[in-house]
């Protein structure tokens, strides 16, 4: 069995029939490693740079602590069970709130996308709501929900649902007209058209857009957790603001790293899902297929 090769000389020179094919190594290396390596490399470079800046004494330690200090702080946090409890509580809220936001946002998005009337009536309103800072919902949240878990959920849902709804609208708008026409010809109208054609067609774009909704949910949650302390239930947002209140730069950075890691994991999940969807349809980009 010969090695697979492809050669294209870009000079317009006729092929000499006696020429030997060039060997070209395209053997597959373990994909998982190849994907993880750059992340580790980037992290390493970043840590080294950070340490150098920190050693240079450009800013005092209490303003810009070095990575060893911050990572030490992170290790200390990680060794406290209360940290994990707080993280767990916040993650639970994030997941529940996001799930609610996805359900509500998707419903609103679909309703808005389906009905031309609703679309023009409240399409822009949805985005308008999205630009509303979480903090302005507090009075309403307290008024309607009281000071408790529900108030936090309220803020999270109001923060994230419009983004999810917008994702639905964007996805639906980008469904190629050929599919609409096909649906029409197949006799799919109204909800049937959506169920069988528009929603599946919009799915990859919708799933990719969920990471935006997640970001809104998470940010709203951090804001919401400042509002409400539920007795016996300190969450990540409280701890973060406590670190900030105390000017505890190392602690703040440690919490930032936690937030970052959670965000990156969520993104990895969403983009993997979107990639899988595209792959099943033969729509993966060449880079994705190679990876």
């Amino acid at each position, binding site marked *: 069995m010969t090695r697979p090769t492809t050669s294209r000389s870009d000079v317009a020179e006729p092929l000499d029939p006696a020429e030997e094919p060039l060997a070209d190594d395209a053997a597959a290396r373990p994909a998982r490693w190849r994907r993880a390596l750059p992340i580790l490399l980037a992290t390493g470079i970043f840590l080294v740079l950070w340490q150098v800046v920190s050693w240079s004494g450009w800013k005092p330690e209490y303003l810009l602590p070095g990575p060893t200090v911050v990572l030490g702080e992170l290790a200390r946090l990680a060794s406290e069970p209360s940290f994990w409890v707080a993280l767990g509580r916040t993650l639970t809220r994030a997941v529940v709130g996001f799930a609610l936001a996805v359900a509500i946002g998707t419903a609103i998005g679909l309703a808005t996308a389906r009905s031309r009337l609703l679309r023009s009536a409240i399409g822009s309103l949805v985005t308008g709501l999205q630009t509303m800072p979480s903090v302005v919902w507090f009075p309403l949240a307290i008024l309607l929900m009281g000071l408790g878990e529900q108030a936090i959920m309220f803020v999270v849902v109001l923060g994230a649902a419009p983004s999810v709804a917008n994702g639905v609208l964007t996805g639906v708008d980008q469904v190629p007209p050929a599919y609409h026409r096909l649906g029409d010809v197949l006799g799919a109208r109204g909800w049937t058209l959506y169920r069988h054609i528009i929603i599946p067609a919009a799915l990859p774009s919708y799933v990719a857009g969920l990471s935006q909704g997640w970001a809104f949910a998470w940010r709203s949650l951090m804001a919401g957790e400042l509002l409400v302390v539920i007795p016996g239930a300190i969450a990540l947002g409280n701890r973060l603001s406590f670190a900030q*209140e105390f000017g505890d730069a190392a602690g703040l950075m440690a919490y930032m790293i936690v937030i970052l890691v959670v965000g990156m994991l969520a993104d990895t999940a969403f983009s993997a899902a979107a990639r899988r969807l595209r792959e099943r349809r033969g729509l993966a980009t060449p880079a994705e297929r190679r990876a």
Partner: protein
Amino acid sequence: DDGVSIGYFPTVTHAPALVADGEGLFDDRLAEVGANATTQSFRAGPEALQAVLAGSVDIAYLGPNPAVTAYLQSSGDAVRVIAGSTSGGASLVVRPGIEDPADLRGARLATPQLGNTQDIALRHWLTAQGLTATEDGGGDVHVLPQPNSAAVQAFRTGQIDGAWLPEPFASRLVEAGGRVLVDERDLWPGGRFVTTTVVAHPDVLAEHPERVQAVLEAHLDALALIDDDPAAARDTVAAQITALTGQDLDPATLASAWETMDFGPDPLAGALRDAAAHADAVGLLPDKPHDDFARLWDLALLNDALAARGLPAVAA
């Protein structure tokens, strides 16, 4: 660069700064030494703290808690208290029906922020009453930190039973039907404790003592104005708050808040040390070594100015 940046909060407990800025005293005094003032209003404690630590402002009006925290976080390198400003102006206001501390068992009380000045005062006081309150809101009394305005609304809608808040929020709670259970002044010797101090960055003190001196003169001028004509000073405060926030503070609220505060140049060092000890006792002091805050105060310039005015000196 001949600018001096001065930071303060647009709130009544920072009245001397509001008066000094509103009457143009900072500008006048700094002009005498060939400098000019840029004033900035902070919106939240952590930002003020960070601005002081980073040296983004030269001189700031701060609560005792951020001052102590800045001192501890920077191992004493980033902040010096150069004068006192305000005492008093914080109360525990509760709903009718709570007549004495024993009635608080099971109650939900708000404070502005976990570990802030009022939060520690409440926790310390509760401990003295034999009531427990954990950091996470558990215990005999549930302490629920939340933004001041949210606390007022939560009180109005019956979500909380009371709150230990600074002015003008304490007065607003009273207007919303609350009654004062504890006026914090009653807990301190002489009724005086630190609410606002004036701090400077040590670099500014070292490089431009004359500018710091000028700001202190303006500060003392403002205190004198407040002393001489409280009503006029209150109007200036109200006008300045409106200018900075676009909101009108209700005159009645302002008047009632005013009654709970004292203004003076004494930084009340003893009270500040006590407050830090209280925080330490309830476990809400940054976990850093401190030397009994030996370097926190730098009152030489203040005492010079007081002497020039024939006023008694203050001590750290």
